């Protein structure tokens, strides 16, 4: 049934001729992947990780660099990016969860690792070109029925490509969350001590959640790099992490699709209302604060509870 919700998005480009709007949607789709995946570790497992933007950014760099240095396709470049993300997630996750770091300390340690990663990328000029960033000139190729091997370029191509990636992400999260794994995440979020007594290996499931979330963020980052054609160290900044957190809080952290709504609003709004960089930052800050104080369930969560009450 829920699959029908995607239908409007699929036929949308036929109705709306504006390239500008379709571009905003494409950006929203890609950032929504980052938001939905962040919600895995934050909303569903209850851990505030500040490493998400780092996973996003590191993968962007690895995919782009592999593709350009070794002259391979996007897909081949994606492989080392995902492998590295899984590896680094297992290492950092093991460190954090083995030592049973709670709430605030987990946020600080993941922040520390995120900043370290950003500093490495910022200063490793020979490889990453430092603050100047890198141009990503390649585009992904995809085998599509009818046209065969097509280059994903141009507004329509990217719209459907990123939408497909988003659908894949949501499907993957849905499979995981509806299974016993999702129940373990919820148990850890709600009452860790009880979960342990019931036989749930807290370390293993936190690690799984963290790794899966970062891996999906890696996919988002790689897509973002190839879409915008440009990567820079700011992809890993704390601000990027905060943007993603704001999207999740605004959209609602108790559902899989809530963060998608948040991503759309926060990506679209600054374009709809023409805002300067500073005004955008103030807006994001206000959104973060207001959602926590006034709308703790986010937009989708609040709608859902109205529907239940009715």
């Amino acid at each position, binding site marked *: 049934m829920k699959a029908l919700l995607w239908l409007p998005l699929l036929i949308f480009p036929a109705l709306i001729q504006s390239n500008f709007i379709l571009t905003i949607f494409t950006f929203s789709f890609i950032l929504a992947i980052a938001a939905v995946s962040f919600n895995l570790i934050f909303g569903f497992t209850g851990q505030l990780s500040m490493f998400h933007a780092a996973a996003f950014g590191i993968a962007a760099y690895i995919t782009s660099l592999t593709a350009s240095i070794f002259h391979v396709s996007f897909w081949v470049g994606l492989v080392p990016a995902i492998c590295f993300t899984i590896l680094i997630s297992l290492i950092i996750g093991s460190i954090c969860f083995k030592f049973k770091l709670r709430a605030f300390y987990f946020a600080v340690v993941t922040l520390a690792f995120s900043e370290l990663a950003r500093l490495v990328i910022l200063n490793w000029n020979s490889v990453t070109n430092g603050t100047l960033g890198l141009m990503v000139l390649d585009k992904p190729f995809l085998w599509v029925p009818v046209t065969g091997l097509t280059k994903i370029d141009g507004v329509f191509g990217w719209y459907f490509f990123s939408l497909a990636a988003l659908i894949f992400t949501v499907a993957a999260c849905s499979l995981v969350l509806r299974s016993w794994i999702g129940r373990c995440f919820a148990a850890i979020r709600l*009452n860790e001590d009880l979960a*342990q*007594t*019931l036989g749930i290996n807290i370390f293993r499931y936190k690690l799984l959640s963290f790794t899966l979330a970062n891996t999906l963020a890696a996919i988002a980052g790689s897509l973002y790099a190839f879409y915008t054609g440009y990567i820079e160290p700011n992809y890993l900044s704390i601000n990027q992490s905060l943007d993603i957190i704001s999207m999740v809080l605004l959209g609602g952290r108790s559902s899989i699709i809530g963060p998608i709504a948040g991503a759309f609003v926060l990506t679209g709004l600054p374009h709809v209302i023409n805002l300067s960089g500073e005004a955008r930052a103030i807006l994001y800050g206000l959104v973060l604060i207001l959602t926590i104080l006034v709308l703790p369930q986010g937009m989708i969560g609040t709608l859902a509870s109205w529907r239940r009450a009715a």
Partner: protein
Amino acid sequence: MLLEVIELTKRFGGLTAVSDVSLSIAAGEIVGIFGPNGSGKTTLLNLITGILAPSAGRILWKTVDIHGHSPNAIAAAGIVKTFQNPQLFLELSIYDNVAIASHLRLRRRLGVRRVAELLPWRDSARHAEMAQRIDGILALCRLEGVRDRTAASLSYGQEKMLGVAMAMMCEPELLLLDEPASGLGEDEIRTLEEVLRDLRDSGTTLCIIDHKVDFLARITDRAIALQQGSVIAEGVPAKVLRHPRVVEAYLGRQHARA
């Protein structure tokens, strides 16, 4: 012999909470451990279930030493406890609470093949099987009617029963109950006794820790008395309760002499 505790000691800095405690529990028994507050009952429980690490001594579960193992590993091995202050997943429904507790059961039945459970078309089959099992446990714990209510909406007595239901869903061989009768009215205690006897009849060994001696006397086959971290008496409940040191611990030296 299912569980053997050998010279178990736990020190917190200068305080010795459990001192050289040795006891054993055989399959099918209902054993009671009692003592005044501060006698080390809960600490002993936490040592057995892996929440605390012992300072000295050993804990043998089916002849394997389990001291130092993590709580979830010990639960997987077959020892599950309930909490004195009921610990629940308050935001979730009763059904979901027990569903989470089915974790170990799923793992035992399927092992690595659990991964197949991720496939979407397994949904309905899985749900039907689990629902049947959950309803069975809820009925056993006299909680059938409240299946879909939130855990936060339960009365205190029902919360305690839910704790027992969740522990039972883990299919323990040994169920440790931490003060199950505390805070319950007389009626609720009778119901609890019925449930506990049903549990034993279905094959679970029980160890009940409480300080309500009359409740323990009625339900247990064997009783162990603790005071200040040491075992002071052991045996048939009626005899243990009349043991001079036990009487002294509960009522004071004057009564013991009388």
